[in-house]
């Protein structure tokens, strides 16, 4: 029986921590509805800045570009990341495993300026046309490891005896994986996709390096605007992005909740 106690110190640090995390975002969202352009004046509730956004074609193009790149890179990253997770968690030792896992997890910590620069140089050397696909490839490389981490974590906690039971009943290993393991890790795969999607949506540095003329992503546009100073239109854009991500998270956790209890290993982690 866990008799964990919540001391006052714990409660205080939790409360303060979460307040710190959420306050700026809440303030931002509130200001996006501020009719007045000035931060010092509250002009009443208004949707004017949202309308401004929808009239700004450059912004809308950038947003659309971001969504496309996000979806494409997330899909490829999740596919490759799942394969990598399977190899690492079920593959036991194999030649080059150390190098493989090293390469896989390096983008997690590597400063983005390095990854961005190196990819750009590759594209230049191969005379690749920089635009949608180069950014997508770059984002896939960046987010693959995140998807892999999520899926590998889930694979590790699955009860191995399920796969053994499948084999006992006549499946070869591949079929056992497809019919038994895969359905059980779908929530993790979905979570990995969501994670890769939001990371791609959010990335500034790598996109700046690897994008081409006319294919700016949303963060690139936001960044160039922000450098010129705070604009209320940005508040509206940010709020919309936050809203989108919130929806994505809710969907992800619903999917995860509906299927997460299945197949958990009985042994404590």
């Amino acid at each position, binding site marked *: 029986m*866990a008799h*964990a106690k919540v001391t006052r110190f*714990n409660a205080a*640090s*939790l409360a*303060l*921590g979460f307040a*710190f*995390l959420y306050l*700026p*975002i809440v303030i*931002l969202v509130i*200001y996006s509805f501020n009719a007045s352009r000035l*931060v*010092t004046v509250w002009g009443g509730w208004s949707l004017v800045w949202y309308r401004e956004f929808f009239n700004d074609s450059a912004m809308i193009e950038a947003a659309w570009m971001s969504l496309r790149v996000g979806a494409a890179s997330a899909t490829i990253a999740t596919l*490759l*990341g799942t*394969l*990598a997770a*399977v*190899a*690492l968690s079920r593959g*036991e030792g*194999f030649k080059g495993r*150390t190098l*493989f*896992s090293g*390469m*896989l*997890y*390096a983008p*997690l*910590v*590597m*400063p983005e*300026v*390095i990854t961005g*620069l*190196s*990819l750009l*140089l590759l594209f230049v*050397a191969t005379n690749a046309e920089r635009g949608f696909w180069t950014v997508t*490839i770059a984002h*896939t*490389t960046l987010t693959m490891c995140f998807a892999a*981490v999520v899926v590998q974590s889930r694979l590790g*906690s699955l009860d191995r005896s399920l796969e053994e039971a499948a*084999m006992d009943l006549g499946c070869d290993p591949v079929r*056992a*994986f497809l019919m038994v393991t895969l359905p059980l890790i779908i929530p993790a795969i979905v979570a990995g996709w969501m994670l890769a999607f*939001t990371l791609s949506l*959010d990335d500034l540095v790598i996109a700046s390096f690897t994008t081409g003329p006319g294919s700016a992503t949303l*963060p690139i546009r*936001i*960044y160039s605007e*922000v450098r010129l100073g*705070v604009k209320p239109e940005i508040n509206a854009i*940010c709020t919309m*992005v936050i809203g989108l*991500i919130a929806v994505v998270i809710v969907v992800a956790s619903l999917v995860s909740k509906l299927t997460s209890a299945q197949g958990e290993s009985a042994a404590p982690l």
Partner: protein
Amino acid sequence: MSARRIFARPARFAAIAPYVWMVLFFLVPFAFVLKISLSQTAIAQPPYTPVFDVTAGWAAIKQAFGALSIDNFRLLVSDDLYVLSYLRSLVVALVSTSILLLIGYPIAYGMARLPKRWQPIAMMLVIVPFWTSFLIRIYAWINILQHDGLLNQILLALHLVSQPVVWLSTDSAMYLGIVYSYLPFMMLPLYATLVKMEPSLEEAAADLGASPLHVFWLVTFPLSLPGVGAGVLLCFIPIVGEFVIPDLLAGSNSLMIGQTLWLEFFTNKDWPVASATAIVLLVLLIAPLLLYDRLQRRQLEQR
């Protein structure tokens, strides 16, 4: 043959596709960075020489090799601008990571000691801002910290200051931004380790006469060290190369290495120097990177 071995064989094949991808798009590009770092800048497209033209024949390639030099690296070491930039980055990263550890540990600990049914909610609450665009969150702080922003408004209203304080373009703002953005990176590994620790270990320590402070220092903290290590490295390494936060929040009198790299590349269009900067940065980070890799493998594969 055990069941695990039967699975291992086909499982290894799954590694092929991601392996090829990573070699192509992660390893190979570094070779290019190295090559460019040894080249000279040129007003041309691409803006560097020599260019290796595969079709030009072996002699041309040999000649191109001869044109490589380590001039750029000499520049980095000799010019104060770069040395200071590297130093500043390391210092900022160290300071930020320390602050992150001091702030993140109590929060992670608080989360780990919550009743089990509240823990997933707490996790969600931590992850949600993390998934919210990083750029947006920095922008949110600019909103608050600007000259006539909310912070100054509150301070003026409470008569704590007589004039608006300059918050932006300072190191404090930058540290605030860094801590704010990287907090989840520090908290999540810490939380993962702390939550696996049985509460009965702390009870046993108390039962044997350890005061709450002793319990923490002698039992809880040592057992959370893997999480501390992961969190520290997960923050330190990327912070060294940070660009966006110092660019938007810090002053312009001293640049971090990420900013220097960006400047060289986009403003000066000096690709070779930018590449050399990246190589040196990479070399500086090799030790922590290897350490992180070791820790990560041990944690993820302890099943």
